[in-house]
């Protein structure tokens, strides 16, 4: 296992071993996430730049105020639900990774299953929201909403919203696919034969990253 006893005078950088005491796959996953952070960072910064160069911007509370079954006039409610779904699925992923460390196959399968359910639930929420906005006339290149001060708004509000949440949704989707693959591999005893569940850990890193990005997207689009 990765957590071997660590003596304090180990020469981490002397060669012949990982200086960080992690296998290369995890290292690569981390640096991939770094680079993906720059992808999302660039998107969000581009969004900020356009907002700073615009004379006005729609109020998100006026735009996102519907809840399925409850009608409109409920700002922030639906997106709160989405946020909590993602946080909870992140928690179940943590538990799945920990079960993997303990080589507890049943628990891994259970928590992965719930993580996948969370991911699908999030995607469904997003699909509903997109559909609802589309009904209201919003799409790429179409913006029915006016600026907060009542002046005409450019289409960039919806352009950025659909592009960035779409890109995030694409990440959630690939995360769900990865998790399903992990679930199948766990159920078919692939990890048992390998003797470790390190793959789950890497999938977990990716999943948490998706949650992390949502924290930023949520704040940038729905709150401020």
């Amino acid at each position, binding site marked *: 296992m990765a957590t071997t006893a660590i003596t304090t005078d180990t*020469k981490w*950088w*002397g*060669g*012949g071993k*990982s*200086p*960080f005491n992690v*296998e*290369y*796959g995890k*290292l*690569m996953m981390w*640096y*991939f996430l*770094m*680079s*993906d952070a*720059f*992808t*999302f*960072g*660039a*998107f969000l910064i*581009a969004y900020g*730049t*356009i907002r700073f*160069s*615009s004379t006005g911007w729609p109020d998100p509370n006026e735009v996102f105020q519907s809840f399925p079954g409850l009608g409109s006039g409920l700002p922030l409610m639906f997106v709160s639900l989405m946020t909590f779904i993602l946080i909870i699925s992140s928690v179940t992923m943590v538990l799945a990774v920990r079960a993997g460390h303990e080589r507890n196959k049943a628990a891994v399968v259970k928590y992965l299953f719930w993580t996948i359910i969370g991911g699908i639930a999030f995607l469904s929420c997003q699909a509903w929201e997109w559909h609802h906005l589309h009904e209201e006339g919003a799409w*790429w*290149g*179409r913006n029915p909403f006016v600026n907060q001060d009542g002046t005409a708004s*450019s*289409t*960039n509000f919806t*352009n*950025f919203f659909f*592009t960035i949440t779409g*890109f995030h949704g694409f990440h959630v989707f690939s995360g769900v696919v990865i998790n399903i693959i992990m679930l199948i591999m766990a159920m078919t005893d692939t990890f048992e034969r390998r003797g470790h569940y390190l793959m789950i850990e890497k999938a977990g890193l990716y999943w948490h990253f998706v949650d992390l990005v949502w924290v930023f997207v949520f704040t940038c689009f729905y709150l401020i």
Partner: protein
Amino acid sequence: MNNEGVIGTQTDVGHVHAAHHDHDGDHHHHHETFISKYIFSMDHKMIAKQFLITGMVWAIIGGLMSVLFRMQLGYPGESFPILETLLGKWAKGGTITPEAYYALVTTHGTVLVFFVLTAGLSGTFANFLIPLQIGARDMASPFMNMLSYWFFFAAGVVMLSSIFVETGPFSGGWTAYPPLSALGSASPGSKTGMDLWLISMALFVVSSLLGGLNYIATILNMRTKGMSMTRLPLTIWALFFTAILGVLSFPVLLSGFILLIFDRNFGTSFYLSDIFIQGVGALPNEGGSAILYQHLFWFLGHPEVYIIILPAMGIVSEVMSTNARKPIFGYMAMLGSLFAIAVLAFVVWAHHMFVSGLNPFLGSFFVLLTLLIAVPSAIKVFNWLTTLWRGNLRFTAGMLYSIGFVSMFISGGLTGIFLGNSALDIHLHDTYFIIAHFHIVMGVAGIFGMYAGIYHWFPKMFGRYLNNTLSYIHFWVTLAGAYLIFWPMHYEGLAGMPRRYYDYSNWESFKQFVGLNQFITIVAIIVFATQLLFLFNFFYSMYKGRKVTSQNPWGSNTLEWTTPINPGHGNWVGEIPEVHRWAYDYGKDGHDYISQTTPVGADESRH
């Protein structure tokens, strides 16, 4: 001059021959088919060769394009029947059309910057040298390494196909600024050609990320016992920083391109505002900013020039130290300056945009940060010069190219200080001064670093030497030619001659340069022909060159020369050697060189 070096005292020829036919260490050697060995190979050495040869193919295509548009610049309006034969309807009557001219310029830039000097240079040498010099059997993930090459190959295929579409390849310059790149109605090249250009570049970004992550993980995790970070050869350090630059900056370009794709195809206006096109009318797109694209593009674009130059710097440091028979001067300073350049690379991007409408106050910070780059660059130059100082120089072709690199880097770097000042840039931007600057400091210097590496490691790659006479002809013609082509462009630029123009003969003020432009064109053709000579040398020597007979022909300290002459997959026979010292113990205590694998003696002096 003797290629073999005069040393060879520690080489063990018998052992090498035995190893040559033998299996490669504890690694698999089971029935390799042609496909698994040469096509979908997972051996880092084969992938490096694939990168190199693909890069060379692109260099020839890109170089030929420059010859073609130089014909137009040198002899505007004149008819060359060969051009019609080559380009068909794009050169009716033997004169290149304006559309074709811009397409050639654009594709030349894109191909040379990304396919040749990024994939061809760092792709080749990172793949080849990282496992060999750090003492690893292969990359951390050979499979991802293979994918990296094939994504690059796919990017090349898409780019090549864009040349053959009816409306022609993209023609808005390699930087692909909107609105020209965002609107299909802006120019013929902005139609299908631009879509293919974007797809190709997106594939290229994926390739570069797959490669870069692998290089970083390999360098950190897979070093052999004793190979601490400060014992790494400078090549590895340079490739390490190159990979970091790529991993952190290419994603930003990808984001910028995704927004551009939406602008092109889905009616968004991220980069578009207030546009009127003749024949189409006013566009509904409002609220975007074309400057935003420039920011996103140059956030990659600037690190990109260091992605090109850092591997060349690393190669030059290694080749120069080996052939001066002296330790590299100031190893830690070299390392620190590489780090400083890598950091500064990320914070100076807007110096490409001083006249775009960038806030001048913000611009002044970019001026300051840009001029700071002169410090680590100067440290490196002085360290190379002091490495040469009183060295026991062996003028191998690799060494000549290394010295040529330093010369180019100085010449081109000094004009960078001119351009880094926003006030001077008002006059110099978009003139031939820029062309001269970046071709010398990035293009030619990068190519020189690549040639230094090819000449130096060719024996390791193919077990044979390149022909020396041809190498020397190649070097001297290329060096003289590069200066003759690009030096006069400084004068043209200072006189205000703008870049990216099809024909200058309408301007009275540029008529003085008619002769000079013809001269540059003629030299460009000669230099291009000389590169074909190198190509001949390369492929001829691959099969017919003089065989390498000793394991360590250059008397070098680094680990790749402890492998068999033709190492198999797995690199070392038996155990991977342990490392006991840094890579630069040349001329120490009366020894000509001491390999990194030699244990430190009891009475050895400290370096």
